[in-house]
């Protein structure tokens, strides 16, 4: 039986593309901002584009922040995408300092406007990029997660962002993408919580495969 995925609707950005992508992999995607629906979901996807502060106030205004905290306690799978991933962190420096959900220790900060060689670096980072395992991470770090497994190919995913999450604990860092010599956080994980900086719903077949894996973990 296909499990149901609740996509949180909180008035931020394009939630329909995530729903469309889930439907494409035959998942019953329910778009909802109802607190009871969120708390009792089998799986949750928190999408979102735009500014961090707007996303956080939208979550708080509707009480969705507490519903997410309650859901995460149940150890059911939670996936945050783009801003939906960044709000998992403690705070962001985007347009002032703003508190996040604090589910994962660390901050969200602007991408450096210089490469590691000191040359100019374009921000936002807009590109299809491949993921790599963080330096010093165990070889099996991608086991049991939504990312392609070791024997799979190494596809590129679509990134579009000006800010980047920086988890404090290395255990929470799942994957990075290189930009201007910097290793940008591409995916984070803590227990049942996964966060992706890139957009699987906009990353062709590779992205659809990833969303499909999320419904199976």
């Amino acid at each position: 039986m296909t499990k149901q995925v609740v996509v949180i609707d909180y008035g931020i950005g394009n939630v329909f593309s995530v729903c469309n992508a889930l439907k494409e992999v035959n998942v019953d995607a329910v778009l909802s901002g109802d607190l009871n629906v969120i708390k009792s979901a089998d799986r949750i996807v928190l999408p979102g584009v735009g500014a961090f502060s707007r996303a956080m106030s939208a979550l708080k205004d509707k009480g969705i922040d507490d519903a997410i905290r309650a859901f995460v306690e149940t150890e059911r799978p939670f996936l945050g995408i783009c801003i939906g991933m960044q709000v998992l962190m403690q705070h962001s420096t985007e347009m002032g300092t703003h508190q996040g959900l604090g589910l994962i220790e660390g901050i969200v900060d602007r991408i450096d406007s210089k490469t590691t060689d000191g040359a100019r670096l374009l921000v936002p980072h807009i590109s299809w990029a491949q993921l790599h395992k963080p330096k010093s991470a165990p070889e099996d770090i991608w086991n049991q997660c939504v990312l392609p497994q070791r024997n799979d190919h190494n596809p590129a995913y679509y990134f579009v962002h000006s800010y980047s999450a920086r988890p404090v604990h290395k255990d929470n860092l799942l994957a990075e993408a290189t930009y201007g010599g910097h290793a940008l956080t591409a995916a984070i994980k803590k227990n049942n919580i996964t966060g992706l900086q890139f957009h699987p719903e906009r990353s062709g077949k590779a992205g659809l495969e990833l969303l499909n894996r999320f419904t199976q973990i």
Partner: protein
Amino acid sequence: MLKARVIPCLDVKDGRVVKGVNFVDLKDAGDPVESAKAYDAAGADELCFLDITASHENRDTIFDVVRRTAEECFMPVTVGGGIRTTDNIRDLLKAGADKVSINTAAVLRREFIKEAAEKFGAQCIVASVDAKRVSKHGEPLKWEIFTHGGRTPTGIDAIDYAQEVVDLGAGEILLTSMDRDGTKIGFDIDLTRKIADMVSVPVIASGGVGTLDHLVEGVRDGHATAVLAASIFHFGEFSIHEAKAHMVKAGIPMRMDRDK
């Protein structure tokens, strides 16, 4: 190194593709959604719809096109043409667009870029810069902003304008050389490089592509991070895959995952 993007652009009028699209096995060559699906399957990195609908009444057809595309294509989609208000932007994003490209409205009132970027995030606001070379041979190079598909001069210096829209919060620049558009003689490399080297956001080169070498030149010599083309893809002259393979051969990193 950053992977460059190849972006096919479809001109849409009253919900149909104009200029014609000539893919093999396309059910309906005038349906933008069918074309979008073909480009998606061929590995396009992004898609651009340009709504050139003349009458206000037919504006809504683009929402239907975007909505149907978003249901079947899983790549980023930019929509441009006729965007005047933040409500227009909200409706397009809601229909499934990832980015909007703003042209005339920003030329008339620059602050519109700032309002749009603050409301929806810089990452979805593309400033469309339509520039025409106005310097004569031997004079220092100079380009001017034109609106209404290159017909109306504005007296605004294109280089200054590009910097201004970036300062106001545009996350990307779609740079079209109006004198090269449709000529198939290649991008205006001087213009592209001048703006790409100056601004801190990605520049998409557009206007003039006739060969696959032109795409290479846009990135290698023009320093653009993405290249946009219409007719070379629509008429089946070259496939997206051929274009990307050619760019890889020239040493430009590209996404080569074939989707389907």
